[in-house]
């Protein structure tokens, strides 16, 4: 592994980074698309981090027990739906706000994930099959860098599908109406609570699929720190992406790349500040938030009634 960048030169590093960005972007992609759908309906789900975690542990367990990684993905999605539905139900109670419900879900969900995670001592669960993008190349390093999980392509398709749903379907219009002005939406006869419930539930399912990637892709092991704040960063990323599914895709790739930076530098022999380099995605997120947020005017693309009943 150490000699790869030297033998391939800068081109090799670029391919390794691109491959790393594609791999690393998958959790960001699914969570940010799920959060995008949730927030478009006017609700915030801060608990995406634990939905990611629960998705990861569920996918690991189911894949390990049944031997089928795709069943693991499905089970993760179902668990994500359940948690999303719980969040939706909580936030629709009078005098419960989205942020407090999110905090409650974070504490509840992480406890649950750690509880069930303790039982999975198997070193590795069956993993998802990979797609070879680098078969054109004779260099082994490039081929291994470009072995991409099918979830990557599903995520891309999903982003465009979500964009199409928002702009071209009546349900998408209902979601946007519920998020921009629930009063007006109710006046038009839209069942705002039901639309939001469905949006948050599907959003949870998407986020959990992102979690499934964490345990069903190399090295395919479960640990309590496996999500490492990616769900949280993906929530922040939606602001940066201005609530547009296609921009979420681009932002996810950017964050995936930032995440690949630490390990890439380490493979070049720069490992003096290992922990600080690994913290670069958090710094990047914080920087992006500081740059994009503003207390005075409304943010570009923000649903009008975000976080309100």
């Amino acid at each position, binding site marked *: 592994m150490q000699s790869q960048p030297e033998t391939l030169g800068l081109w090799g590093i670029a391919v390794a980074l691109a491959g790393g960005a594609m791999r690393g972007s998958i959790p960001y992609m699914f969570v940010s698309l799920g959060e995008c759908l949730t927030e478009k309906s006017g609700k915030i789900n801060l608990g995406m981090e634990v939905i990611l975690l629960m998705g990861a542990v569920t996918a690991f367990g189911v894949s390990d027990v049944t031997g089928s990684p795709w069943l693991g993905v499905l089970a993760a999605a179902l668990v994500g739906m359940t948690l999303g539905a719980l969040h939706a139900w909580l936030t629709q109670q009078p005098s419960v706000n989205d942020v407090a419900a999110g905090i409650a879900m974070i504490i*509840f969900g992480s*406890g649950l994930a750690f509880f069930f995670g303790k039982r999975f001592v198997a070193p590795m669960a069956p993993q998802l099959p990979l797609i070879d993008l680098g078969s054109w190349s004779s260099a082994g390093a490039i081929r291994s860098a470009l072995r991409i999980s099918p979830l990557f392509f599903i995520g891309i398709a999903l982003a465009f599908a979500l964009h199409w749903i928002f702009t071209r379907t009546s349900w998408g219009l209902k979601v946007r109406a519920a998020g921009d002005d629930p009063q007006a939406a109710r006046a038009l006869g839209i069942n705002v609570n039901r639309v939001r419930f469905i949006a948050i539930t599907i959003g949870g399912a998407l986020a959990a699929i992102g979690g499934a990637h964490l345990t069903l892709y190399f090295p395919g092991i479960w640990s309590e720190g496996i999500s490492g704040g990616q769900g949280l960063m993906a929530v*922040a990323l939606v602001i940066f992406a201005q609530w547009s599914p296609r921009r979420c895709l681009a932002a996810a790739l950017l964050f995936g790349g930032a995440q690949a930076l630490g390990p890439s530098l380490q493979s070049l022999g720069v490992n003096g500040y290992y922990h600080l380099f*690994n913290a670069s995605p958090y710094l990047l997120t914080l920087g992006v*938030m500081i740059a994009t947020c503003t207390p005075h005017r409304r943010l570009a693309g923000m649903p009008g009634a975000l976080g309100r009943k």
Partner: protein
Amino acid sequence: MKRGEAILVPLGAMIAGLLVFGLFCAALGLNPLAVYASIYKAGFGSWYSWQNTLVRASPLLLCGLCTAIPARAGMIVIGNEGAVVAGGLGAATVGLATLSLPPVLSLTIMALSAMVCGGIWIAFGAALQHYRGVSAVISGLLLNYLAVALMNQLIEGPLRDPSSFNSPASYPLTPDHRLAYFAGTHIHHGLIFGAVACVLAWFLIDRTTFGFAMKIAGGNVRAARLAGLPVGRLVVIAGFLGGACAGLAGMIEVAAVHGRANESLNAGYGYSGILVAFLARQNPLVIVLVSLLTGGLLASGGVLQREHDLPDATIAVLQGILFLFILLSDTLYGRLPFFRSRTPEPKPHAIAA
């Protein structure tokens, strides 16, 4: 709000939470009553277990304040864990640098350093929310990750004790530079810090103009601005005070419990502190009571593992369930029939009729 309601609703929520936790245990094939009994025995059953509970309650008191004080100024702080770690690192660094000074002086400097580090940690998030509109919840959690990264960098780098092989740790403090224990117990003096901080916080919030100004800023920003209050400064100071408490919790963990900075700083007291503050409805005096209860729960983790073969995350599940019920109980205020006011409500149409 009626006083009876303010006590009964959270109490009811806790009981409901415990019942659901019992169902969870039953679903795992355990006898819920036996699990409750173990928790009670490990947390409150004997003087020995009370000591364990009190040791855990000390950081909880301070971590609860970290959420409760800024909450009065309208800021939801959940970056407690990061502030604990930052405070612990500040204390350890300064403590190791002042080993040549008299212990009392060194410990004082450690406490101050921890409070400044924790305070800045939370005040930064509060300032970001107020001046830049960055959600304090998101920035707080991000800062938690950054604090842990900083800690790992320090305890595996410049502060590392070469004799700590498996789990990296900083150099230890000398025994005389550690916080003392109450005679004949294993309860350290950090408990005093926590209790005094709660009383001070209550005094600040309920008995001073600063506390009153904070409450106005937290209740209605526009009204506070019209009254000429410096809302931004109030929010940032409230954040600093809260963070200073959590930082102090980090200091007592370093100076009393572990004697050095290591990964135990990141043991979850910050997250439990959020639960404590919400259970106490952000009231500093109630935090004392709730910290004891929560401390008892945390103390029972090991016993649950030994007696019922439950993983230590079981207590985290219980905390999560309690949090959900506390949140849900908010919807009950003013809706319980026996707390409705006895005097009939004035009828708006009486005059027209």
